[in-house]
């Protein structure tokens, strides 16, 4: 898939706005932006599974939560700095994904959904009930700002925004490399037809497994940044509703494109925050967005735009 000139321009403009605009923005909008780019990391990581491998996971928030809890526990109990929490958070979520992947990839379609749901609940159950480690329902509060070992600490909203933006760009670049590599193309091939790829001599299971672990590790990376941003880590970070919301982000934006995942995450974060300002009935509206996405844009926003374009062009 070649990158069109229009896309390059759009990305450049988008990037320039993300870098230049924030100092002029209100703290409310800045909050929105920071949350949007952090949840984009979760959505992009899930998109590796959902979009590129065609596997709907109902437990992806678990890895995000493992990254977040790594930060919560290591900073408040052991007074660790940023880099160690980052390494532990990413490695731990990758390790858990490596174990869960062994179980989950034995199944396909609706069974894969159920198994990932169940595995997600295992982690959620530990977070909720292992009170001596996780403080249960209350969560771990007063997570400090990241200590980088540098003269600079992203302590206030604006500097944390830039810090998160750097993390987001890093995650995007890494995942874009993955999905554009021959490995990524193989994942798409597996999504389209496992049998064909197996016949061609590809090790289908291994590709799925590596994709699963990469997705878990990337989600864990996002969770680390989220914990430092939010200042509190709680079971709601990895509950079922968060996993489903991540699915919605990807489905709404458009599966199989990282831009779509970012777009979906941005829209959902903006919607949740803006609607809850104006009405208490935001769950009602969020529910309608879930249903409306499936009814009106089953291929997501990016997918729908592509369909329009395809219709416009003479074939």
């Amino acid at each position: 898939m070649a990158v069109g000139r229009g896309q390059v321009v759009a990305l450049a403009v988008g990037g320039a706005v993300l870098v230049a605009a924030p100092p002029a923005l209100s703290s409310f909008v800045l909050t929105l932006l920071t949350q949007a780019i952090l949840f984009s990391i979760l959505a992009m990581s899930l998109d590796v599974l959902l979009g590129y491998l065609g596997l709907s996971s109902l437990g992806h928030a678990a890895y995000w939560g493992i990254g977040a809890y790594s930060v919560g526990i290591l900073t408040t109990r052991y007074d660790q700095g940023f880099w160690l929490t980052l390494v532990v958070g990413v490695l731990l979520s990758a390790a858990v994904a490596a174990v869960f992947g062994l179980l989950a990839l034995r199944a396909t379609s609706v069974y894969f959904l159920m198994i990932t749901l169940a595995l997600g609940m295992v982690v959620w159950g530990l977070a909720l009930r292992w009170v001596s480690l996780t403080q249960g329902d209350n969560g771990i509060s007063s997570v400090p700002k990241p200590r980088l070992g540098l003269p600079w600490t992203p302590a206030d909203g604006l500097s944390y925004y830039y810090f998160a933006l750097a993390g987001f760009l890093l995650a995007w670049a890494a995942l874009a490399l993955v999905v554009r590599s021959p490995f990524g193309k193989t994942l798409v091939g597996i999504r389209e037809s496992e049998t064909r790829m197996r016949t061609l001599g590809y090790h289908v299971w291994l590709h799925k497994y590596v994709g699963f672990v990469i997705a878990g590790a990337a989600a864990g990376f996002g969770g680390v940044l989220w914990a430092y941003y939010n200042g509190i880590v709680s079971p709601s970070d990895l509950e079922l509703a968060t996993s489903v919301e991540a699915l919605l982000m990807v489905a709404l934006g458009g599966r199989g494109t990282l831009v779509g995942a970012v777009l979906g995450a941005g829209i959902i974060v903006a919607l949740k925050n803006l609607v809850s300002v104006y009405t208490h009935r935001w769950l009602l509206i969020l529910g309608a967005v879930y249903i409306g996405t499936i009814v009106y844009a089953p291929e997501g926003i990016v997918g729908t735009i592509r369909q329009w374009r395809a219709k416009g062009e003479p074939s």
Partner: protein
Amino acid sequence: MPGVLTADFWIIQVFNGISYGALLFLLAGGLSLIFGMMRIVNMTHGSYYLLGGYVALSVIWRTQQFWLALIVGALAIALVGIAEWNAFLKRLSGQELGQVLTTMGFALIFQDLALVIWGGDPYTIPIPPALSGSWQVGTLYFPVYRVFIVGVAAFIGLVLYLVVERTRLGAKIRATVDDPEMARGVGINVYRISMGVFALGAVLAALSGVVAGGFVGVYPGGDFEILPYAFVVVIVGGMGSLKGALIGSLMVGLLDNFGKALFPELSYFTLFAPMAAILAVRPTGLFGRA
């Protein structure tokens, strides 16, 4: 933890586990049939449970009739289920992602509507005098209401079993579960059967919600609290299998009770980890077919 090793502790915990398992069987039996037949991951199932309890509560407030409330609650939710299935779900067969997101959307909407209509306070459904109190056996007390739940679940389980295994309608249902395309080919109205089973699942969920209202209460958030349990039962037992739902329910009920009593810190883990272990060996559950 007083008296962990006494026989009384074990008897009471087993009894509590079985009665909770009976409640779960009511809830998950229908979910399992829906899974088995339509492969729908129904996130709204917990909402049916909660709404059933709330509707029954409103009926009781007006009429003081427990049994009437049970029936009205179940029928009202059957209508909700039929409407949801007809308007959206029947078009989404085979699209797991679409089903998950649509039913999740309904679950959120129902959660919010329930909050608007019934408010945020927890309620308990008043149980009829005949079902309150306890039976005393030696030094042990068994609440009549919990025995009643076991009885209801056993009765409904038996009726379901007889209908599915012994009647013409049941044969059609089994045929639709096994191979919808062939079933359609031999003249079975798969749409009507599917809608009927979906409504049945909603009715059972609502019944379990009313019954549960008598001992755990009806409160906001109850829907998403019970949903994972129903999923675990179905996953462990295997989708579409009544026998699996029965065994899964008892297992989950007992594991939950003993987990909470013996290892409170790991109580969810003791529930979900055995399930993961079973899945590792049998990805389709104990009695499920791929």
